[in-house]
C-alpha cells in the first residue's frame, strides 16, 4: 500500500456498502450499473442475489429487512430498472421498511436528454421514498451513500433511493467512512417527554376498560422493544391487540392477547377497542382498515399514542396524550415510571369486570368455521399448517387477499420478525420475493409463503431466483380459483356479479414447479392436507403446494367499510344459540 490509487465511484459504492455492514444485495444488472457489477464480480464480501424482476428485488430486500432487522439493499439499472422498482419502494414506504435502493442513471451530461434507458428517477420516486438522492459530483458519493443508510434506518424507517449516473461510477471518488458522516437535518426524537409519560401512566393505572393496541412500529423498533412492550403489558395485566403489521410484537399464546384487530380482526379485539375507556396505541397509525368509521371509533376512549413519527399522531384520530419517541425507549420509560408511580391500584374490580366481558366475547369463537370432509376449507389448511410448523422457528410471508387475512388469523406468532406481509400498500406478488429475502437472511429456517393462486402469478418468475440460489422456500397456495377478496366484496356489496375475478387459465402448479426444478405437491381433500404439509417441510427444495380449497368461502369476521367496530359481520360459526345470545348482550353493552 505504498501509493494508493484513488478509488473509482463504483469502488466507493461497494466499500460504503461493506462498511455499512451489508452482506446481501438484491439486484438486476443493466447498462447504467455495469461498473458496479464489475466491482461486485471482483470481490467476495457482498453476496449478490440475482432476481428476475426489479419489483422482486425490492420485495426480497423488504423480506430480508423484516426477517433480520437489517437494512435491505437493492441494485437496479436506470430507466425500466428504476420504474419496475417503484411498486416495491412504495410498499416499503407504506410499511416503514428500511431499504436502500441504488439505481443506475445515464451519465450526468445526458440527463434530461431523453437518453436510452433514461427516466427521471428522483422525480418518479420522490413521493414513494422516504428520501432520494441524485449524485452529481463524485466528491459527494461516499457521504450520500452513508447518509442514505442513516435516513433509511433512523426514526420511522423507509426506502431511500440513490441515483448513480454512470460517469460518477467511473470517476475517481474520495472515500470517507460511515463515522465521518453526521446528519445535518433529520434527527428524530427518541426519548419520550417525561410529563406526558407520567400523564399516560396515571391514565393507564386508573383505567377501567383499558386496551393496548400495538403496531408495526414495535417490530421496527427491534426485538428489545417488543420485549419491553410485552413486559409492560404483562405488568398492567390489561388486554392487548395487534395490527396486521404488529403480529409477533406480543406473544400470540399469551392469555392477555386478543388477536388481530381491524377489518378482519377478531370479535374480542374489535369490541375491546370499541368499548375501551383508555387506549394505548403503540407504534401504530390508526389506518382506515383498523378504525372503520372514524366518528364511531372508540367513542369513549382516552387515547395515548406513542410513535416516533409526529405526523402519525392526530392524523386520523384525535389523541389525548401524544408521546413522540422510539417505542423501545418509551416502553423502558413506561416501566420505570409505572414502578415508581403506581403504588396502590383502585381499578382492580373494574378491570376484572372488563376481562369478564372480554372472555364473553372470546367465547363467541369468531374464527370458527364449518368443517367439511370433502372440500378443504382454507381455514383448515392454515390451521393444520400452523399446527405442523409451530414447534419450529417458522417465517411466514403472504401475498395479498383472503389468504393473507386467514394467515394473520390462524398463524400465531410468538416472536417478532417472523411475519412478512404487505400491509399498507397491499401488494399482490409480495410474498414469494419476500420469502426469498427472508430465506437469504435465515438459510436454515423454514420459510413459507402463504399465497393465493392469483397473487402468486404476479411474481411467479422469482421461482427461478429461488432455484438458482437453492432457497427451499415453501409456497403454500390456497387455490380457490378466484381473486378471493375481490370475489367476497362482489358477493357482499355488488350483488354477486363476479366481474373479472375468476382465475381463468391457471397453470398446473405441480407441473409449473417441476418445470422450474422445484417440487410440486397437490391436495384436494381435507384428509390429504397433513401429509402434504409434512412432505412440503421435509423436502429440501423449493416447493409449490397447490391446495384446492372451497371457492365460496368468505373471510370473517369483517367490518364493512363505513361501519364501526361493533358492526362486524360474522361468519357461519356453527355456535349454538345460547352462546350467541351472550355475545349479543355483550354487543348491546358496548
Amino acid at each position: 500500500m505504498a501509493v494508493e490509487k484513488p478509488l473509482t465511484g463504483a469502488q466507493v459504492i461497494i466499500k460504503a456498502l461493506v462498511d455499512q455492514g451489508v452482506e446481501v444485495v438484491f439486484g438486476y444488472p443493466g447498462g447504467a450499473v455495469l461498473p458496479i457489477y464489475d466491482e461486485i464480480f471482483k470481490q467476495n464480501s457482498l453476496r449478490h442475489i440475482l432476481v428476475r424482476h426489479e419489483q422482486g428485488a425490492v420485495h426480497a430486500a423488504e423480506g430480508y429487512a423484516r426477517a433480520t432487522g437489517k437494512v435491505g439493499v437493492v441494485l437496479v439499472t436506470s430507466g425500466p430498472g428504476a420504474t419496475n422498482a417503484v411498486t416495491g419502494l412504495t410498499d416499503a414506504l407504506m410499511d416503514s421498511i428500511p431499504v436502500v435502493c441504488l439505481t443506475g442513471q445515464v451519465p450526468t451530461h445526458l440527463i434530461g436528454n431523453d437518453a436510452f434507458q433514461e427516466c427521471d428517477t428522483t422525480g418518479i420516486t420522490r413521493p414513494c421514498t422516504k428520501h432520494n438522492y441524485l449524485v452529481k459530483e463524485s466528491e459527494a458519493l461516499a457521504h450520500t451513500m452513508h447518509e442514505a443508510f442513516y435516513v433509511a434506518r433512523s426514526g420511522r424507517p423507509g426506502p431511500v433511493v440513490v441515483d448513480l449516473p454512470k460517469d460518477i461510477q467511473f470517476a475517481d471518488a474520495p472515500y470517507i467512512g460511515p463515522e465521518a458522516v453526521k446528519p445535518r437535518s433529520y434527527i428524530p426524537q427518541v426519548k419520550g417527554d417525561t410529563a406526558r409519560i407520567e400523564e399516560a401512566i396515571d391514565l393507564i393505572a386508573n383505567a377501567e376498560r383499558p386496551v393496548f393496541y400495538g403496531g408495526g412500529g414495535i417490530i421496527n423498533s427491534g426485538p428489545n422493544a417488543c420485549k419491553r412492550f410485552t413486559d409492560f403489558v404483562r405488568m398492567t395485566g390489561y388486554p392487548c391487540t395487534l395490527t396486521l403489521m404488529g403480529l409477533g410484537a406480543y406473544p400470540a399464546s399469551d392469555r392477555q392477547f386478543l388477536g388481530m384487530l381491524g377489518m378482519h380482526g377478531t370479535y374480542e379485539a374489535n369490541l375491546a377497542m370499541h368499548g375501551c375507556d383508555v387506549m394505548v396505541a403503540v407504534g401504530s397509525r390508526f389506518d382506515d382498515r383498523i378504525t372503520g368509521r372514524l366518528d364511531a371509533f372508540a367513542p369513549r376512549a382516552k387515547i395515548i399514542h406513542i410513535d416516533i413519527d409526529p405526523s402519525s399522531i392526530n392524523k386520523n384520530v384525535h389523541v389525548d396524550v401524544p408521546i413522540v419517541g422510539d417505542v423501545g425507549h418509551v416502553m423502558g420509560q413506561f416501566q420505570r415510571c409505572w414502578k415508581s408511580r403506581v403504588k396502590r391500584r383502585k381499578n382492580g374490580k373494574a378491570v376484572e369486570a372488563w376481562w369478564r366481558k372480554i372472555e364473553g366475547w372470546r367465547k363467541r369463537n369468531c374464527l370458527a368455521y364449518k368443517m367439511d370432509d370433502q372440500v378443504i376449507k382454507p381455514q383448515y389448511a392454515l390451521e393444520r399448517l400452523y399446527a405442523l410448523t409451530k414447534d419450529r422457528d417458522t417465517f411466514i410471508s403472504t401475498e395479498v387477499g383472503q389468504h393473507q387475512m386467514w394467515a394473520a388469523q390462524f398463524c400465531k406468532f410468538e416472536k417478532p420478525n417472523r411475519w412478512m406481509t404487505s400491509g399498507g400498500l397491499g401488494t399482490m406478488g409480495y410474498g414469494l420475493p419476500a420469502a426469498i429475502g427472508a430465506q437469504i437472511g435465515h438459510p436454515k429456517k423454514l420459510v413459507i409463503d402463504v399465497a393465493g393462486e392469483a397473487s402468486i402469478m404476479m411474481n411467479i418468475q422469482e421461482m427461478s431466483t429461488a432455484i438458482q440460489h437453492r432457497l427451499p422456500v415453501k409456497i403454500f397456495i390456497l387455490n380457490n380459483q378466484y381473486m378471493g377478496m375481490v370475489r367476497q366484496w362482489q358477493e357482499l356489496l355488488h350483488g354477486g356479479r363476479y366481474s373479472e375475478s375468476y382465475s381463468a387459465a391457471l397453470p398446473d402448479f405441480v407441473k409449473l414447479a417441476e418445470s422450474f426444478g422445484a417440487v410440486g405437491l397437490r391436495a384436494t381433500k381435507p384428509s390429504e392436507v397433513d401429509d402434504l404439509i409434512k412432505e412440503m417441510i421435509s423436502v429440501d427444495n423449493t416447493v409449490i403446494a397447490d391446495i384446492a380449497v372451497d371457492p365460496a368461502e368468505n373471510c370473517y369476521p369483517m367490518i364493512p367499510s363505513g361501519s364501526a367496530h361493533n358492526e362486524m359481520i360474522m361468519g357461519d360459526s356453527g355456535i349454538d344459540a345460547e352462546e350467541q345470545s351472550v355475545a349479543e348482550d355483550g354487543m348491546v353493552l358496548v
Partner: protein
Amino acid sequence: MAKKKKPAAQPGSAYIIQPPDPNEERHTLAVVVTNEPGVLARVIGLFSGRGYNIESLTVAPVNEDESMSRITIVTSGTPMIIEQIKNQLNRLVPVHDVHDLTEEGPFVERELALVKVIAKSRSHERRESLRIAEIFGAKVADTTTDSFAFSMTGSPEKVMAFVDLMRALGKTEVVLSGVVAIARGSEAL
C-alpha cells in the same frame, strides 16, 4: 345483531368518505430548508400529493453562504390538517425547521405587486390611478404616455385592495410576488 345491522354509509365503497370540514383556518408557515436541487419539488409534491392547499409560496436562499433557503407558505385547512402539514414538512429530510407564524405570535406579512395600468394620456383614469397610487404609497416603476407600472408593497389585504382599484381604471396587468412574513419582536428564527 351484527348480522341484522347493515353497514351504515356508502355501500360498495372501500373507503370512508367524509364531508368537507367548514372550520378552515389560514396559516402562514416559514420553512427553513437546505438549499439543494429538488427541495422545492419535495415541498410542493407533499402539498399536492396529500391534497393540502397552497395559497401563496415564496422561496429564496437567506443565509450568508446560501446553504439554506426559507420558504414562506400560506395555506389553509382545519386545525388537524394544519398540524399534519407541519408534521409532514418536518419529516422531509432537507427540512430544518417549520414555524407556524400564525400560531407563534404576531407577525408581519408583506407582498410586492407590480401593476400596469393602461389608460389614455390626459384621461380621467390616468390621473386617478396616480392619485390612488399616492394614497397607497405605490411607486411608479415605469411610465409611457398611455400607461403606468406601479410598484407597491404592503400586507396582502392592502395589496389586493390596491389591485382591485387599479382594475377598475382600465386594462391592467398584475404580478404578485407571493407573501413573505417575519415574526414581530427581537427574536430571530
